[in-house]
């Protein structure tokens, strides 16, 4: 079969939908297959409000879908990118909540004094410290990866992590 014929057949098959070219949706689905469960845990830890978790996660995924890069340098780059998108959406949500004075953390803080669970303890931390703690201690990210996701220097990751761990331990021991 000559090259031209092969080309024509391929084009026909593509037109007919027989060739599964990676669409943006397909690529994002593939990324989410790998990271969704862990991303969900981050959002739960960051937001603290179970009712808002799915909305924030969907908003983050839609944002990711709209801004999906054409290609990633490697898997680490891909992971950093999707975690950063989700983390930013969490911060946006926390800002919105604070502005509307309907902070779920505040509610949780008041309602859930006893018994105190992990969500309540996390809610005691500043959002930036919470992010570092969740990425490093919950998901097992290294300092470099965390620094890349949060776009902060490695040293800042270390200092925030120390402060967050100390505060977390103090609160949970109380």
């Amino acid at each position, binding site marked *: 079969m000559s090259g031209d014929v092969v080309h024509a057949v391929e084009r026909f098959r593509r037109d007919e939908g027989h060739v599964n070219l990676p669409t943006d949706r397909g690529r994002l689905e593939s990324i989410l297959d790998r990271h969704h469960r862990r991303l969900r845990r981050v959002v739960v830890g960051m937001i603290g409000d179970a009712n808002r978790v799915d909305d924030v996660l969907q908003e983050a995924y839609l944002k990711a879908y709209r801004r999906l890069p054409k290609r990633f340098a490697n898997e680490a780059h891909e992971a950093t990118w999707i975690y950063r998108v989700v983390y930013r959406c969490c911060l946006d949500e926390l800002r919105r909540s604070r502005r509307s004075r309907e902070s779920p953390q505040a509610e949780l803080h008041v309602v859930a004094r006893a018994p105190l*669970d992990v969500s309540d303890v*996390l809610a005691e931390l500043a959002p930036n410290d919470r992010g570092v703690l969740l990425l490093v201690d919950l998901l097992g990210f290294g300092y470099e990866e965390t620094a890349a996701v949060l776009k902060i220097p490695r040293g800042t990751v270390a200092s925030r992590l120390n402060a967050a761990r100390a505060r*977390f331990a103090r609160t949970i021991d109380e």
Partner: protein
Amino acid sequence: MSDQRVREALERLPIPEEPPDFFDDLWLKAEQEEREAARRWRRIAVALITLVFVAGTAAGVFAVGRGAGATVVDRTIACRVITNLDSGSVYIGSEVRLPPDHVNGGVFYQPGSLWVAGNAGAKPQLTYVQVSKLVKGGYSFDGTICKKTAAIPLARSGLPSLGTFSRAGNARFDESCDVAKDSLVTVRIRVTELSANEPTGAVLAIRSGRRQRPTAFVEWTPTRVRAWLAAGCIQR
């Protein structure tokens, strides 16, 4: 509390159950967003096309307007009729554009013209006003005996029609109207130019005599002239 205990505590973070239609809902929203984005782009495109069309039309209108009427000269002058005769004359003539004429081996261009002249002492005829492509700038006013004065109505003022002149029939007229000796002839003319040396139209009104009665009214274009003259005017 050790770092290990922090990790163990975080492991106890309660994760709410995910709705079964989480991803269906997500992709539905994505599709809706895409449709809305497409609609938004279509609206923007339509708006842009409309804008471009309107801008183009406006530019065209301005271009045509500028070309056709950007240069309009409206001037009124008063010229004293100076003559040794018992009475003076004012001459009004016009012709439409005609093909170049070949006279004695030379070319005589006839682009169409309009003029008003009168007695001026030693000069039996002095051109007060002239409109022609052959005149520098497309028109000229006498500045020796004619002075600027207040505008007179640019209207027929009940004058009888002399006729319409075009290339198809009579292409020109040249009339003489008697005016009182030493009286003033007031001429108002509004010339429209496509560009310098390219007059595209003119409207002329003349009043003369001690009472400044209407004497002539002419609508001139290079292709058609309509004239209204006082009853006393005669063909030269």
